[in-house]
Structures are given as C-alpha cells and as structure tokens.
C-alpha cells in the first residue's frame, strides 16, 4: 500500500458506494439483516441466562437448628456462616418467623399448629443461606451437616441440578447458536459482496489490463466493504435497540417475573460483536471475492 495513495483509496472506496447505489443498498440490507439476527440472539441469550441466574440464586440452603442450641452457639454459627466461602447472604429465621411463614403458607388447611403461639411452637429455628453459585452447595452442606446443634441441612439439590444442567445447556446452545449465526452473518455478507464484485468484474479486468497492481484495485474495494459493513452494523444496532426497547416495554408487563437486562448493558455486549463482524466480513468478503478477477 503506497502511502501516497491512501487518499485515492479512501475517495475511491466511497465513490464505489455512491456509483453503485442500488448494489450498495442491497449489500447494506443484507448486512443489517444478518447482524440484526446475530444481535437478537445475543440479547435473547443474555436475558435467558439472566433469568436462570435469578432462579439459581433464589435457591437456598436451609439450616434447621436444634431447639436446644444455645444462643452463643447460634451466634458462633452465624459468624462462621457469614465468613464461609460461596455464601452470598444469610438470614436467621426465629421460631416466630417460622410460625408466621407456616400460617401464611398453609392457612386454615392444616390444624397442625392449632393451640401453639408464635413464641412457643414445634417449628425449628433456621438459617436461610443464599449461595453465590449453586456449585458451592456441596461444600456448604458438607461443612454444616452433622455439626453440633444442627438438626438438618436442607438443600433442594434436584432443582439445583436441573438448573445447573439447564444453565450448561443454555450456555452451550447459546454459544452454538451465536456461532452458527456468526457464520451465517459472515456468509450472507460475503455472499452479497461477492455478487456486488461479480457485477463489477469487467471493471476489475480493465484495471488489470492497464497495469494496476492487485492492491491498487483491492484497496478501494476493501474500504468499500468496510464502510458498507460499518454502515450495516450501525443500522442493525439501531434497529436492535429500538426493537429491544419496544419488546421490553411490552413484555415486562406480561412476564413480570422476568428481570430484563437494561437496554444499554445488553447493547454493549452485542455492539462489539456486531461491529467487528460487520466490518471484518465486509473487508474479507470484498478482498476474497475480487481475487479470482484479479488473475489476469
């Protein structure tokens, strides 16, 4: 790349787009579509893993205390729990709390607690321990199980396992789908650029016949590809943001348990992937597809 020619290359790159407006439009539309889909699945995937994350972190280890455990022992346990690795949050449930919860949950249906008061009842005191991640569960449960003063450590490992497997599945599927869509986006973009270059094959030939080097011909095409890729990716981002905003506003009333990722957070992650894909695919697409026409 002769430095003196940079100005010419850039000018020609933009000229190429302007001279073939219909073709450039077609290319940009294809790129918008390809990248929009890529972005959609990324944003969708981020939300799904967010939801599962919420569900996971709501899974708790419950530590039931023996009625005869002393207050000091409880205090010690409390301190230990709060320092334990992998524990996000610890909540103490007194007998009164437990009584309240029971009433709330079963109401009149059960006469089990009839005659008991909030202060004096057969329900055990307990700790509700929220984990940072389900993978800490085994350690925590093992550390507490059978300890003095502890009646029973309860952890719904079945649900946790399912969630865990779900998380793995979703991550893998997400990666695979993003991978596939990435390939699709690149193929669509390269395909489009290929047809655009094909339509200009004579032009390329003529340049070769009057002594232009391959790079002299290639640079404007590459810049053209990059500009088209950039334009397409910016437009697809704008579209994605618009539709995501809209979808969140519509869906958050229906799916009220879902905690949507704020639009900007979701965008930041999608942005990089989309822009890089768009530009790189545009560049590679144009560089690769003029190759066969340069061989004269």
């Amino acid at each position: 790349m002769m430095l003196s020619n940079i100005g010419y290359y850039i000018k020609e790159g933009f000229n190429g787009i302007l001279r073939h407006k219909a073709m450039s439009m077609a290319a940009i539309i294809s790129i918008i579509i390809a990248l929009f889909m890529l972005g959609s699945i990324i944003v969708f995937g981020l939300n799904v893993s967010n939801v599962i994350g919420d569900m996971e972190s709501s899974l708790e280890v419950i530590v039931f205390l023996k009625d005869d455990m002393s207050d000091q022992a409880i205090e010690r346990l409390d301190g230990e729990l709060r320092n334990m690795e992998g524990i996000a949050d610890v909540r103490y449930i007194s007998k009164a709390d437990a009584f309240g919860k029971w009433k709330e949950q079963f109401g009149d249906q059960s006469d089990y607690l009839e005659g008991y008061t909030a202060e004096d009842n057969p329900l055990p005191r307990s700790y509700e321990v929220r984990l940072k991640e389900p993978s800490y569960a085994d350690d925590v449960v093992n550390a507490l199980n059978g300890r003095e003063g502890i009646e029973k450590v309860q952890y719904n490992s079945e649900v946790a396992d399912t969630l865990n497997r779900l998380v793995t599945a979703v991550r893998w599927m997400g990666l695979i789908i993003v991978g596939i869509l990435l390939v699709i986006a690149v193929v669509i973009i390269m395909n489009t650029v290929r047809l655009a270059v094909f339509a200009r094959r004579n032009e390329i030939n003529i340049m070769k016949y009057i002594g232009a080097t391959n790079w002299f011909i290639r640079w404007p095409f590459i810049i053209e590809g990059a500009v088209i890729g950039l334009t397409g990716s910016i437009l697809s981002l704008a579209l994605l943001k618009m539709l995501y905003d809209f979808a969140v506003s519509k869906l958050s009333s229906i799916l009220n348990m879902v905690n949507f990722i704020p639009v900007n957070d979701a965008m930041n992650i999608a942005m990089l992937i989309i822009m890089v894909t768009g530009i790189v695919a545009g560049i590679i697409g144009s560089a690769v597809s003029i190759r066969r026409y340069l061989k004269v």
Partner: protein
Amino acid sequence: MIRLVNVSKVYDNGVTALSNVNINIKAGDFVFLVGPSGAGKTTIIKLLLKEIEPTSGDIFVNDKNVTVLKRKEIPYFRRNIGVVFQDFRLLPDRNVYDNIAFAMQVVGTPSKEIRRRVPLMLSLVNLSSKAYAYPNELSGGEQQRVVLARAIANNPPVLIADEPTGNLDPDTGWDIVNLLSEINRRGTTVIMATHAKEIVDAMRKRVIILKKGTVISDQEKGVYLDDVK
C-alpha cells in the same frame, strides 16, 4: 525491443490463432499489422500484454521474456505498453477525465501532474468538450479516441493500437494516425493493427501481413496487399 520467436497459439476451444510466428521489432519502429478478419492480429497484441499465454514459443518485450514473467511483475510490465484496445475497455462508471486520470493514478503520478496532463491528452484527441461525459454517452469514434488518449497518457515506450481508426471517419482517422506518427517520431515504438488500406498505403511504413495465423509478408515501406485473402 519486441520479439516473437516461433510463437503459436491454440485457444482452449481448439482454434489455432497463430502458428509459428516470428516477428522482430526494433525500438522506435512504426509497424502496421494487417490481415483479414480473424488472422490473429488481436491475438498477437494480447500475447504481448500477457493477457493470454502462447501455446509455444517465446515473447520478448524490452528484452524481458514475457512468458516467464511472475504474476507480481505483470502490472509493472504492462505499464510500459500503452494499448488502444479494439473493444475499448473504458471504465463505464467513470467519466472521460477520470478514465484517463485512472491510468495515470495507477502508475503513481502525482495528482498535480494528472490535473495538468489529462486536459492536454484530451485536446490532442480533440475531445476537450467531452471531459465529463461517461463512456456510454460517447459516440463510437469518441470512445475510440478516449482509449487512445489513455494509452498515451503515461508516455509509454511502446504503443500498441488495435484498429484505432475503425470507428472514425477518414479525416479524423488521419488525425489519429498523424498523432501516432508524431509520437513515434519522439521515440515511441508503435504497433498498429488496422484494416485501413488507404492509410497503410500512404504511410509507407513497415507492414506485417498475417493470414490464418502465419506471417505471409513483412516489408519495410510496405503496402496493404489486396489479394491476401
């Protein structure tokens, strides 16, 4: 300067366009290449440009063996040769000015020099008024003259013109031939494939006559033979 040694060309579809052609052109020559339609004139020009490869034989331009040129060297090699293509080959999406300017940009001419020289070239071929017209807005003869202007823009040591007067009226044709002649006087080797009997006969330059792919006559101060067909 330019030498074809035992050159034969058989196209992929089996057509023998040239068989065993030997031509030797010295620097500064002015050569007419004549012969009936399909004789192989354009084939020779394409060989000189390495647009196609000979089936056998060797081709030398500027003492370089063209047949063994590396792919990377081809563009630089082609810049030594200005060509008026029989089928014009103008860039359809650039106007006349830009078509000529492009040929100069290719060889790295500074833009100041380009801005000075393109109008000069256009006035030489009498097309100053068409600078901003696009190729499809030109008449056949005008396109032909643009191609000529492009071919001479870089002052190449060799100028090859394939039928440069085919679409021109006799007067304009003569203007072009006189221009080529002037360029030749200044040292450029000129090879002109043509059917213009009048011009060939009047110029009395070297005439190479091709027929069915072989050189049947090669004379200094020659004339267009009518009975070669």
